């Protein structure tokens, strides 16, 4: 069984492309981040410098204006303040908007004396003083220098924008100290940074796609020959030995290709030689068969003519005629079985399945071997379903298997009972042949199907078996996709179980009869 593999583990190309893209993603991410942080730092710095110098000039201008109106009438001062406010909030180049907040710092004397000087506090867009970060106000109250801070700016309607707060104390004549704040919107800067970020992202994605594509193209150059090689190799495995790889260049892949081709040529040559050898042998066996059969037929007829008249001969010649006939029988059977074995070896044995009824076949085999299974004192008992067991198999082969198993059991039963049983399932049929003879050792079980093998070489053959019967029976069973199993124990007899698929060629999925007869009812 082949394991279920993810597509990734099945394709080298996918693996290489994926890892290349993942690694490139890391690299692009790192470079992109570094680039972005450098760019944004630079942009922020430039914008800060611009804003600060802007602010400086506004504050300077304000101080200068206020100095000019020092000592003038409050109307003139008011006009001066308004002018400052107007020039301050006119938008510069890099901001989208700019706010101004002017907060009067009430001096202690002023509060204590309760004589209030004019208050020129102002805020554009009615911003509240709370919009200004507290730290900045603390800082501004401490020193007269220019201070700045980045912070979000909350408008009264709830809008929040990123902003740069720049503040300084100014003195408005006839009124006192003021905290003057300029708030620069960073919306434009943010837009610039977004643009930079988006461009970087887009570049990164395009770069990754390109890397993926390039990797695919490169990998394909390597993988395609490998795939070709794999395809050709698998065709080769299926038996098409003429398959070769196309070698076009002289790179490493091409070296692999020509090495493969050399191997293929060598294998094709060897197989060709072996096939030829096998053909020669098959033809030889076939010729031998023909050449042996014709004289054997003559021999057979001649011996039969002699045998038929043995009563007229003197006893020695009569007995010789009997032996001659018997040995010709044996010779003929041996020749037949040898030919069958050679057919299996040459893999030319063909299954000829027909539909037939199994129990009738078994009964006939028993009868043919001279046992009357119906008789009360019969040595063989046959236990089968009372209804017909129809199977699709090669009648001749199944008959031969049963004949071999039963005559084998008769040979080794020492006259003790033999039990034959037939059972069926939906997918398979099984027939067991159990004898209670001398049995065999466990070590013999592996060899019992070997050709010309005998459990006990010193034991005489009673029925003149050829020593090929069980071996042929096993081959016959396997030709059906069935199995033939043997069990035996010394002193406990032996058991052979034939399991066949109901329809020859199907797979058997179960063994309806266990080979060990003692495990029957477990």
């Amino acid at each position, binding site marked *: 069984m082949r394991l279920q593999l993810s597509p990734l583990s099945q394709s080298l190309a996918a693996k290489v492309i994926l890892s290349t893209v993942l690694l490139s993603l890391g690299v692009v991410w790192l470079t992109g981040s570094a680039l972005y942080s450098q760019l944004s730092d630079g942009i922020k710095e430039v914008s800060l410098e611009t804003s600060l110098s802007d602010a400086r000039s506004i504050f300077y201008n304000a101080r200068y204006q206020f100095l000019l109106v020092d000592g003038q009438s409050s109307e003139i001062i008011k006009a001066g303040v308004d002018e400052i406010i107007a020039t301050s909030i006119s938008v510069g180049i890099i901001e989208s908007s700019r706010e101004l907040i002017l907060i009067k710092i009430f001096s202690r004397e002023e509060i204590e004396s309760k004589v209030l000087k004019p208050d020129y506090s102002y805020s554009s867009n009615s911003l509240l003083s709370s919009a200004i970060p507290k730290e900045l106000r603390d800082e501004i109250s401490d020193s007269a220098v220019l201070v700045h801070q980045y912070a979000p700016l909350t408008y009264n309607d709830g809008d929040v924008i990123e902003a740069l707060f720049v503040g300084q104390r100014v003195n408005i004549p006839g009124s006192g100290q003021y905290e003057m704040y300029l708030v620069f919107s960073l919306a434009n800067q943010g837009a610039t940074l977004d643009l930079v970020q988006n461009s970087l992202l887009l570049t990164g994605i395009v770069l990754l796609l390109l890397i993926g594509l390039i990797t695919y193209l490169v990998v394909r150059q390597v993988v395609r020959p490998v795939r070709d090689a794999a395809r050709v190799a698998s065709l080769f495995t299926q038996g098409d030995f003429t398959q070769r790889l196309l070698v076009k260049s002289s790179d490493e892949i091409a070296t692999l290709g020509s090495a493969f081709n050399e191997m293929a040529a060598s294998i094709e040559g060897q197989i060709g030689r072996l096939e030829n050898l096998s053909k020669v042998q098959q033809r030889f066996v076939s010729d031998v068969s023909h050449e042996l059969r014709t004289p054997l037929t003559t021999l057979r007829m001649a011996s*039969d*003519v002699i045998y038929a008249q043995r009563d007229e001969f003197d006893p020695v010649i009569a007995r010789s005629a009997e032996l001659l006939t018997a040995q010709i029988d044996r010779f003929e059977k041996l020749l037949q079985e040898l030919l069958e074995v050679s057919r299996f070896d040459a893999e030319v044995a063909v299954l000829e399945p*027909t539909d037939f009824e199994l129990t009738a076949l078994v009964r006939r085999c028993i009868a043919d071997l001279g046992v009357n299974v119906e008789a009360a004192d019969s040595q063989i008992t046959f236990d089968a379903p009372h209804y017909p067991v129809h199977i699709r198999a090669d009648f001749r082969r199944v008959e031969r298997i049963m004949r071999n198993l039963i005559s084998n059991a008769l040979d080794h039963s020492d006259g003790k009972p033999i039990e034959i049983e037939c059972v069926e399932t939906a997918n398979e049929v099984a027939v067991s042949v159990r004898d209670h003879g001398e049995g065999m050792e466990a070590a013999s079980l592996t060899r019992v199907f070997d050709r010309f093998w005998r459990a006990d070489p010193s034991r005489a053959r009673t029925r003149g078996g050829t020593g090929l019967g069980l071996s042929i029976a096993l081959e016959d069973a396997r030709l059906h996709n069935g199995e033939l199993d043997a069990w035996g124990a010394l002193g406990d007899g032996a058991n052979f179980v034939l399991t066949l698929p109901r329809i020859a060629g199907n797979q058997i999925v179960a063994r309806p009869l266990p080979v060990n007869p003692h495990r029957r009812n477990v």
Partner: protein
Amino acid sequence: MTLVMVVDDDQDLAEMLGIVLTGAGIDVDLVSRGDEVMDVFRNNPPDLVLLDVMLPGLDGVEVCRLIRAESMVPIVMLSAKGDTQDIVAGLEAGADDYMVKPFKHPTELIARIRTRLRRTNADQKGLLTIGDLVIDATAHEVKRGSKAISLTRLEFDLLVALAKEPGRVFTRDSLLSEVWGYRHSTDTRLVNVHVQRLRSKVEHDPESPKIVTTVRGVGYKAGVTEES
């Protein structure tokens, strides 16, 4: 006296066959080459031909075809190879039966020959009908209307066997024993090939037979006789 032509290139086997057949009261004509068969056959027509497959001059299957072209004489093929294609080729060329060398017993060969010879004098007398065919067993004739159909003796016997018992389903085994005289051979190819040959001669459409119908999984039976 009955005459059997033995065609075999093996001199010794041919002589032995001669001894055995003569012993059984059958005259024998020995021929050793395939290309000599037709001359001898025409000069002295035998009652049965025993024909080896492997012959010098002309192949046994070819000889069989030549004999069949001019005679309905029973032909029994002898084959040294039990291979299917040889046997089927012989049967399709018109042989009635075949035997694989070496024969189980020479007596079996003689029994087989006698069966083939006896069958030619069919025990059935009178008229039989099967489908739209009329069989005149006495005259050994099969007619569709006024048109006579030429059948080999074995094909005739096969048709008569089916027609005699119109309701009965014959298994291949029972046909083998009744028509060929086999005791329990199970070579169903013999039946299948001959049923096909018979159908090709008597059926209107051999693809959908009406005279010799197949009973799936069992065998064959006679088609329904048309009331006229």
